[in-house]
């Protein structure tokens, strides 16, 4: 039996439906990216970091390494002996 090739019908025939579909894809990406961008305002891994931001937030320079040695101060106190002074009176 000879079978002639049958042209399959497309999914969407309405041009209005196609326009709605295209709008939906675009507006979903707009809405989605708006939410995403508002939740992630600053991306540290973004390819471009604006010059103004770079100037405002200087890159952290390595701080000079200061070796803080524990300094022990020994206070030399004068030991005072509180002994009662003995006064000798020469008795003649």
């Amino acid at each position, binding site marked *: 039996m000879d079978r002639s090739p049958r042209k*399959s019908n*497309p*999914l*969407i*025939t*309405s*041009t209005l439906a*196609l*326009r709605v*579909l*295209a*709008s939906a*894809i*675009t*507006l979903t*990406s*707009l809405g989605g*990216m*708006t939410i*995403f*961008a*508002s939740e*992630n*305002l600053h*991306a540290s*891994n*973004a*390819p*471009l970091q*604006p*010059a*103004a*931001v*770079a100037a405002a937030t200087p890159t952290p320079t390595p701080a000079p390494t200061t070796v803080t040695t524990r300094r022990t101060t020994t206070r030399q106190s004068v030991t005072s002996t509180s002994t009662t002074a003995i006064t000798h009176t020469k008795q003649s």
Partner: protein
Amino acid sequence: MNLSTDLIWILARSTGTASLVALILSVLTGIALRTGTFAWLSHNRGVRVVHGFLTVLWIPLGLAHVIALLFDRYAQVGLIDLVIPFGVPYGRLAIGLGTISAELIVVVLVSTWMRSSLTLGQWQWFHRLSYVAFVAAFAHGVMSGTDLANPLVASLAWVTAAAVAVVALRRVMRTRIAA
């Protein structure tokens, strides 16, 4: 948090990505007119209608992206940068590609509106500039897009770009075979 500055920044990013999505759809439907790639989805007349309709979507989004960046104090994009590419002090190549893309799109649009006064060959050559504009816009998005640094968004962008490349290659192959 500076509300207006943040709003402009969010608007610039979201409109930039959405206009790229609409541009990808426009290029895909444009190529599909010849190749019949979307024959399973709709008839050629429907694809043609959508291809024309998509300009209504990506032109306002692209304009909003550019206007938002003009007002963004961090981006530091001036009016002159919209005309002369590679003038922005930082991200010279990335932002310059965006300017080139916008200029080529304007040429394609003007040639489409002037189609009746052009020969078919002239119009086709002008219209083929949309491929270059798309590549420049995509490179601009990848090189400067804050959101394309996200792996999920980046993978979506690369998948769609690959789809455009496959459909374009299919069209080139068909043209060669027909010739």
